[in-house]
């Protein structure tokens, strides 16, 4: 007998392999090597999450109970995929061009990026999916316990609640790990997709293996098996016609309405051309999955004792035949089906919940203004992780509360019919320009209310939520409101009845309200974009960014993408526009790119709203307006191009003007500089020339006079030399040709040296704190001394206190070192503080000596050393702060 421990071992190894596969795929994708990750085959296989445990185990049970009806579940999506040229391709194209992150996002985006619709869809999706997740947990638990029953060594036959909890916890871990790894714009999860592709192969192989064993191992061949089928109680065609058609419709709708299917079909789609393969390969996969269902069911009915659960025939038939290995494989197949569904469903739901419910609330709660600081990125990730855990927890709780009985088995179709309520808004949205937000909202509301009343609530069984009395006679005695017989039309199959009425009212309300309401401009734009996606999918909705403020956009982008990524994005965009620095022109192209980056993190509606908040009302581009009026598309497109061109011309003119202004400014500065230099050179020259002439021409000078005049000449000559030295030094520094000699030094030594070199006989009292100065810095010591000497000399020169005191204070601040020089004089006037670092600016009346270049040189030196120098206002006297970089900043030099 297969021991339960062995099973658990196999199961855990399988999970470990899945982790490895997902991990390897993520790595390969990150290094950009994973071309095989994006093959059409992987895409097709990932679609197979359509086949959950409900279909893996349940199909056989379904066949055992109702014959061939189970086929509808597979036929519906097959037909939709065969007709891929109609809807699927369009939805995928829209999803790609509009950066859609979920089915809720698609509907909200189509109807003017309305978040209210997104919330409705999200809530309905959560309601519809939770029981489905519970169903998967149940299937895993039941398959475990059927092994436990077969194992004589295990006396307590397994605690189903704790098994379910462990499975849910494990799935939450896997999903959080691989589902919320990246927040990138395209929201693709290569690891997850690869893992579910592997699981798709496992479940197909498992089901086929059991089928082949049943047909050729037990049944004795194809024709014998056929004969046995005809001989069994399933031998003849039995079908409620309404159900056959209705279920094909429901299952087809589920293909793009189920959040998890939308996720793999649209969001994870890497390349539209993959659809060409998936269009036939996915129906083929579904066909193979359903091929052996009837033989297995018939064999199970024959072999196993009366009353065995037909839902577990896939497992129990091999077990009964003593094929433990096969049973093990089959178990893994079921396990795969359950886990892959739960993983993708929780990713899809968490994206919806975090983008459409958590983020808007959070943004509102934190003030909504996009300019406030904070890191949205972490909030998004956290919201998504919490949503995943929350969704799984809900599934687990539902499993516990519902008791995991037969009632749960019926929930699959209820779930389908719940999400099918999205269908009118979805299809209407992509095929009919006239569909409006109010229409979508009305249809969705009335459809989901009817679904909840007729299908969802009754599914808990009589008297659980709806009292049996109401089921029989209607609420408050209104017979026409009976959940299974609305408007007194009884006798229909409850499912067909519910689907019929809810879809009828949904579609009807959608169409009528749409006809009689008027869409907002945004809706009309989006409607045109969606319906005519193939005509102008080149340019998704754009911004006209003339009024936008790049800096605000930058602040917002940093909050969402993280500072480094946002800066890289902006810098890159600026470079592409040929601009230096971090602030690109807010062109439509750049804004689109930014919005695309953002929407991967927070969803289209939120991203659009955030950009819109900053860009303002000018959100509708001429191009879009033209697209709306595409009845005259040819002419309009042409004029829109003219418009775009004139916009571009205006932008170029603006840039030219800016460049011209800058050149003028530079030229003015150069003039001023030249004239300053001229003045500084000519002034000493004047004295030198005058006294030289006096010494040469004038006779009768006393020796004292001659000596005095000669020393004046010398003094002015020295001044001239110093000025030339300074000028040369400054020009070398400014051109960046300076050679720096970085070495480690103790700050107090540098200060000691500087004080010694700078102090003159006039003197100033210097106060220092040796302890604070005991810091090792890596810098060019000579250059740093130059700065210090200059500052100390300035203090001596300009401090006008009776008892001049200079305080040198050293402190550390966030890895940088601050050296403050403050004196007790009268300081620098506020108006002058900005000017003192400019060349040739002097404070007040100057003594002969300073050319006004000292602080300018200090500023250049500090910039070269990777630090800065600034005037520190409000310190009583004049105060200068020298900032030295910490180790890290130096390394970057």
């Amino acid at each position: 007998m297969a021991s339960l421990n062995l099973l658990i071992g196999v199961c855990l190894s399988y999970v470990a392999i899945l982790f490895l596969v997902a991990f390897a795929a993520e790595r390969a994708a990150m290094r950009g090597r994973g071309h095989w990750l994006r093959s059409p085959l992987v895409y097709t296989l990932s679609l197979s999450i359509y086949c959950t445990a409900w279909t893996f185990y349940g199909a056989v049970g379904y066949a055992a109970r109702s014959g061939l009806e189970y086929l509808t579940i597979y036929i519906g999506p097959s037909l939709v995929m065969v007709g891929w040229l109609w809807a699927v391709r369009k939805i995928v194209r829209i999803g790609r061009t509009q950066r859609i992150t979920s089915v809720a996002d698609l509907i909200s985006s189509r109807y003017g990026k309305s978040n209210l619709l997104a919330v409705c869809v999200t809530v309905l999706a959560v309601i519809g999916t939770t029981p489905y997740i519970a169903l998967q947990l149940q299937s895993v638990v039941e398959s475990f316990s059927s092994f436990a029953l077969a194992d004589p060594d295990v006396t307590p036959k397994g605690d189903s609640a704790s098994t379910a909890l462990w499975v849910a916890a494990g799935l939450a871990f896997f999903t959080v790990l691989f589902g919320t790894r990246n927040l990138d714009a395209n929201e693709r999860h290569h690891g997850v997709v690869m893992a579910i592709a592997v699981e798709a192969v496992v479940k197909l192989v498992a089901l086929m293996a059991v089928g082949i064993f049943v047909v050729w191992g037990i049944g004795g061949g194809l024709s014998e098996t056929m004969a046995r089928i005809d001989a069994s109680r399933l031998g003849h065609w039995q079908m409620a016609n309404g159900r056959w058609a209705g279920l094909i419709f429901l299952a087809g709708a589920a293909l793009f309405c189920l959040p998890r299917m939308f996720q793999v079909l649209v969001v994870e789609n890497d390349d539209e051309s993959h659809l060409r393969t998936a269009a036939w390969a996915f129906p083929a996969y579904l066909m193979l999955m359903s091929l052996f269902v009837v033989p297995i069911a018939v064999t199970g009915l024959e072999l196993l004792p009366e009353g065995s659960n037909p839902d577990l025939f896939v497992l129990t038939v091999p077990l009964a035949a003593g094929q433990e290995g096969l049973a093990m494989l089959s178990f893994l197949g079921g396990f795969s089906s359950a886990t892959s569904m739960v993983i993708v469903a929780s990713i899809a739901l968490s994206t919806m919940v975090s983008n459409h419910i958590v983020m808007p609330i959070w943004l509102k709660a934190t003030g909504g203004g996009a300019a406030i600081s904070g890191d949205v990125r972490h909030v998004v990730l956290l919201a998504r992780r919490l949503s995943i855990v929350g969704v799984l927890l809900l599934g687990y709780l539902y499993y516990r509360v519902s008791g995991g009985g037969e009632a749960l088995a019926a929930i699959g179709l209820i779930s389908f019919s719940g999400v099918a309520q999205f269908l009118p808004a979805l299809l209407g949205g992509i095929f009919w320009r006239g569909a409006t937000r109010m229409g979508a909202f009305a249809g969705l509301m009335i459809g989901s209310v009817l679904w909840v009343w007729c299908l969802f609530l009754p599914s808990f069984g009589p008297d659980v939520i709806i009292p049996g009395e109401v089921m029989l006679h209607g609420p408050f005695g209104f017979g026409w409101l009976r959940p299974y017989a609305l408007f007194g039309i009884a006798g229909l199959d409850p499912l067909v009845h519910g689907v019929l009425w809810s879809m009828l009212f949904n579609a009807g309300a959608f169409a009528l309200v749409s006809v009689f309401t008027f869409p907002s401009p945004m809706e009309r734009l989006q409607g045109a974009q969606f319906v005519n996606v193939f005509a102008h999918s080149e340019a998704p909705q754009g911004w006209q960014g003339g009024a936008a403020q790049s800096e605000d956009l930058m602040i917002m982008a940093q909050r969402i993408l993280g500072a480094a990524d946002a800066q890289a994005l902006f810098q890159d965009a600026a470079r592409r526009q040929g601009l230096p620095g971090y602030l690109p022109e807010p062109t439509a192209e750049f804004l689109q790119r930014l919005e695309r980056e953002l929407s991967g993190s927070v969803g289209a509606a939120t991203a659009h709203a955030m950009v819109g908040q900053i860009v303002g009302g000018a959100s509708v581009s001429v191009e879009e307006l033209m697209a709306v009026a595409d009845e005259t598309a040819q002419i309009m497109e042409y004029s829109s191009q003219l418009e775009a061109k004139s916009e571009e011309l205006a932008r170029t003119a603006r840039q030219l003007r800016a460049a011209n202004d800058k050149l003028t400014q530079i030229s003015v500065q150069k003039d001023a500089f030249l004239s300053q230099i001229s003045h500084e050179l000519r002034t000493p020259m004047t004295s030198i020339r005058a006294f030289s002439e006096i010494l040469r021409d004038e006779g009768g000078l006393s020796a004292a006079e001659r000596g005095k005049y000669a020393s004046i000449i010398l003094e002015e000559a020295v001044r001239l030399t110093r000025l030339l030295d300074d000028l040369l030094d400054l020009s070398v520094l400014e051109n960046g040709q300076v050679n720096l000699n970085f070495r480690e030094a103790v700050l107090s030594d540098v200060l000691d040296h500087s004080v010694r070199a700078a102090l003159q006989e006039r003197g100033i009292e210097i106060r220092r704190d040796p302890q604070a100065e005991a810091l090792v810095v890596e810098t060019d010591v000579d250059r740093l001394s130059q700065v210090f000497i200059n500052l100390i000399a300035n203090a001596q020169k300009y401090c006008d206190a009776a008892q001049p005191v200079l305080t040198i204070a050293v402190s550390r601040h966030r890895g940088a070192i601050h050296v403050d020089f403050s004196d007790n004089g009268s300081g620098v006037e506020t108006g002058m503080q900005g000017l003192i670092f400019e060349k040739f600016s002097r404070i007040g009346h100057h003594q002969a000596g300073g050319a006004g270049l000292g602080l300018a040189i200090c500023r250049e030196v500090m910039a070269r050393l990777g630090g800065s120098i600034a005037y520190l206002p409000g310190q009583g006297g004049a105060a200068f702060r020298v900032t030295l970089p910490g180790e890290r900043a130096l390394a970057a030099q």
Partner: protein
Amino acid sequence: MGKTVLVIEDEPNIIEAIGFILSRDGWRVATHSNGVDAVEAVRARAPDLVILDVMLPGRSGYDILRDLRAGEGTSDLPVLLLTARGQTKDREMAESYGASRFMTKPFSNAEVLEAVRDLAGG
């Protein structure tokens, strides 16, 4: 002779040099080294000639010249303008403000003497 020259200039060495040259030639030399109250100084001393530097602390030489030209009694006082910025633009400005003579630093002593004699004599 014995005429008075007022030298308005902020560089002490230049004051010294001009003072030496002119006093050797027999002029009485008064000095002033601030732009702010230069106009008052001219009024108070009533010199026969003013040597005015353009770049003065507190007030530009051009402004002082304009005030002198507008003022009573000083409108046709001979003014020798000195500048260390030897650009054509500066010369044009000096003329437009009504300088009697414009001279660029560095100058030769003989030039200054000649200019002062010219202006005072005329």
